[in-house]
C-alpha cells in the first residue's frame, strides 16, 4: 500500500494530478509530495509511490510541502493557465497563475493519456517524445488513425484538455490534401510539428 492509498483509506486528502485508480503509480506531477519520517530521518516523498509502513509518520501539510506544491502549480500553470483542476488547487495553495511567463503547450505531461492507452487499452497510440524541457506528447498517426476514432477514452482523463487539442491537430494534419504547399501539410505531420 502506498502512502496515498493509506491516506485515502482514512479520509485524508492529498492532492494529485497524474494519479489514476486504474493505472500504476507514476510519480510525475509531484503535487502529492508529503513529509515522511522513515528510516530514522525526515524526507520529502511522493505519496503516490512511497510504500506506507507501520509506525510511519506522514505530514501532508507543512510549510515546506505547501511551498513546493504552490511552486509546482505555478510552473504548470505557465503551460495550462486555464486548466480548471490546476486553478482549483492554485486557490488552495495560493499559487499565482501568472508567476512564470506563459508557454502555453496546454500539456503538463501528467501522462494519463499515454499510460491509459498503454496500460488499459494496450494500443500505444499516444506517447512521449523527446526529453527534458522539450518533452511532449503526441499521437502516432498510423496507430491513431486506426484506433482512436472509436475509443477517445483518454479525452476525459486530461486535466488540462490539452489532449483534445493535440488530437485535433493530428487529425487535421492527417487530412491535409497531398498537393499542399511544401512546409505545411504532410511534410510536417511528424511529432515535432508546431505549425498548428
Amino acid at each position, binding site marked *: 500500500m502506498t502512502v496515498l492509498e493509506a491516506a485515502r483509506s482514512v479520509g485524508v486528502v492529498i492532492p494529485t494530478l497524474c494519479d489514476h485508480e486504474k493505472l500504476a503509480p507514476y510519480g*510525475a506531477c*509531484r503535487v502529492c*509530495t508529503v513529509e515522511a519520517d522513515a528510516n530514522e530521518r525526515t524526507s520529502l516523498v511522493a505519496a503516490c509511490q*512511497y510504500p506506507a509502513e507501520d509506525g510511519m509518520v506522514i505530514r501532508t501539510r507543512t510549510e515546506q510541502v505547501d511551498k513546493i506544491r504552490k511552486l509546482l502549480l505555478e510552473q504548470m500553470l505557465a503551460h495550462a493557465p486555464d486548466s480548471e483542476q490546476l486553478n482549483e488547487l492554485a486557490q488552495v495553495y495560493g499559487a499565482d497563475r501568472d508567476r512564470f*511567463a506563459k508557454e502555453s503547450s496546454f500539456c503538463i505531461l501528467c501522462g494519463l493519456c499515454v499510460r491509459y492507452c498503454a496500460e488499459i487499452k494496450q494500443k500505444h497510440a499516444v506517447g512521449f517524445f523527446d*526529453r*527534458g524541457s522539450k518533452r511532449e506528447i503526441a499521437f502516432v498517426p498510423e496507430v491513431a488513425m486506426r484506433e482512436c476514432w472509436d475509443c477517445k477514452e483518454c479525452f476525459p482523463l486530461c486535466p488540462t484538455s490539452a489532449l483534445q487539442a493535440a488530437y485535433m491537430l493530428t487529425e487535421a494534419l492527417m487530412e491535409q490534401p497531398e498537393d499542399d504547399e511544401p512546409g505545411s501539410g504532410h511534410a510536417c505531420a511528424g511529432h515535432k510539428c508546431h505549425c498548428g
Partner: protein
Amino acid sequence: MTMINTPGELETFRQEILSQRDAKKPCITLCSGSACHATGSNKVSTAIEREIEAQGVVADVSFRRTGCHGFCEQGPIVVIYPQGICYLKVQPEDIAEIISETIKENRVVERLIYVDPNSGEKTTLEEDIPFYKNQERLILGSNLKIDPKNLDDYLAVGGYQALAKALFKMSPEQVVDEVKEAKLRGRGGAGFPSGVKWDFARKAPGDKKYVVVNCDEGDPGAYMDRSVMEGNPFAVLEGLMIGAYAIGADEGYVYVRQEYPLAVQNLEIAIRKAEEYGFLGENILGSGFNFTVKVHRGAGAFICGEETSLLNSLEGKPGEPNARPPFPATRGLWGKPTNINNVETWANIPLVINKGAKAFSSIGTDGSKGTKIFSLVGKVNNTGLVEVPMGATLRDIIFKIGGGVPGGKQFKAVQTGGPSGGCLPESLLDTKVDFDELSKAGAMMGSGGMIVMDEDTCLVDIARYFLDFLSDESCGKCTPCREGIRQMLKILSNMTKGLGREGDIDLLLELAETTRGSSMCALGKTAPNPVLSTLNHFRDEYEAHINQHRCPSLSCKELIAFHIDPEKCKACGACFKKCPAEAIEGGKKQIHVIKQDLCTKCGACLVACPTAFGAVCKLSGEPVPAPLPEEARSIG
C-alpha cells in the same frame, strides 16, 4: 588455448607466462586510449613496428600498446622499460631516434622528455614526473603494464587471483563482509557503501539475480571510466564475477555508452578471452559457479547513468527513472534482485579481495577508503586522469599534480562532481577529497569530474552552462526537475544577457529548493547544485550581473564591449587585419576605432594587439568612451 580448470592450473599457467618473459628485455609501451588515439597514437604505433623491423631489433625489444596513462595533455606517451624512460608528445618521426638512441645505445632523447613548465627542470623517468610522483595509482597503474587486448598480460600481473581466492577460499558471505569491512563506497556518485548494497541484493529473496556494470559515464569532460574500461577491462570483469558470486547472480550486463567504441571493443575481447580460458561460463575454475556476461550499448543519455533509468534502458524501455523504493537490490532488472555498480567500483573489488579489507582501508580517510580517479580538466597545466588516495586536498591535486593554472592567471574555482556538483573557491582548496568533506563544502565527489576555472571564467555563466546541459539531459518525467531546470535556466540566461532583475536570486533559491526537495531521482535532486554553490561562494558576481549589468570576469558576451584606448593605439593595423567582422576603422597612422554596432565580440583584436601596446581592452558595466572624431585620429 585449453581451459583452465582449477586454481592450481591457473597458477601453473601464470608461471608459464612469466617464465617466457624477460623482465630485463627492453619493452616499448605506447598509450593507446581514446585521448591518445586522437593525438595520433595509431600512426606512432605503425612507426614503432616499422622501425623495430627496419633497425633489426625485432629480437631485442618488445612492443606493447597499453591503455591510457593519464597524462593526456602530453600524449601520445611512450615509456621504455625496464628503466621507465618517458617520452611525451611523441610523433612518428621521433621513433627512429628513440630506437637508435634509447633501445640500441641506452641514451636518452633529451628533446622528448618532460620539462617542468614552471621551473624548466627536466625529468627522464616517468615515476619522477611531478604529475605521476604525487599520485597513487592502484587502479590506473595496471593500465601502464598491460595490453588491454591480451589476457596473458593481465594474468602476468596477478589477474584473476582474486577470483580464485573468492571462489575457493571464501564463502559468498565472507566476500560481502570483506567488501563491507573495506568500507569501499560506490565511485559512481552517491558514495553508498558497496558491501551494504551487495548485502541487500544477496539477502533479497529470489533464485535469479543480476549484476550490472554502469559504464554510462556522462559528465562533460570526465572520462575515468572510459579509461579504466579501455585500459583494463579484465579488472572490471573480475570484480563483476566476484560480485556475482557474492550475491548469487549467474548473469551480468555491462552497460556502455554508445560513444565509447574502443571500450566496447576491448571489453568484448576480454569477455571472449575469459570464456576461452574458462573464467566465464559454467563451472568456473571447477568451483561450480556459473556466470555469463553480455554487453549492452546505451544510446547516449546522461540520465541512464542513474541506476533505475539504466535498468529501464537495458530492458528496452525509455531511459527514465523509477521511484525508489523498491531499490534494484530487491526489484531490479526484469523485476529481479540486481546489484549495479560503477566501473571504478568494480575495478576496486579484485584489489579488496587480493589485499584484504585491512590493507585496502588503510588508505584514505575515516569515511572514504582507497583511491579515487579524477578527470582533471579545464584551466590547469597538466590535464589528464589523476588517481589519488582519498584525503588528498584539492590544492595538491590542482597545483602539485596539475601544475597550477596556465598563463599566469589566477585560480578562481574548481567544479567537482559533474553537472550536479558544485564550484568551490580558493578559500576551500584545502578541502580533502572525501565523499563527506566535499558534500559539506557544497560540492560533491560525483564520479570524479574536476574542472578548474581561472579568473576569466564567469561563475554565473558556468551555472547557466550546467543547467543548460541538465535541461537537455533531464528525462522530463517529473515536474520539479523539468520545469525547475527550465525556469532556473531562463533566469540565468537572462542574467548573462544583462536582463537580470531584482528578486532573481530569491526566485532561484525558491526554485532550487523545490527541485531539490521533490524531484524523483538524483538528477533532479542535485540539479540545483551548480546554482546553489555558485550563489553561496560567488554571490557578488550574481549581484554585479543583476544590479550593474556587469560581468566581473569580462566573459559574458552581451555584457562586454571591446575598446581601443586611443592613448595606447600605435596604428599598427594588427587588429584591423584580424577582425573578421570588418568592425575596425583605421588606416596608416590613424588611431583605430571599433565600430560597436558591427563588433561580434570575438576577441580577435585583443589577441592581435601586440602586448607592448596593450591598446585593446574589454569593458563591462561602464559606457564605451565615444570614438575620437575622425580629424583627431592622426598620429605622428
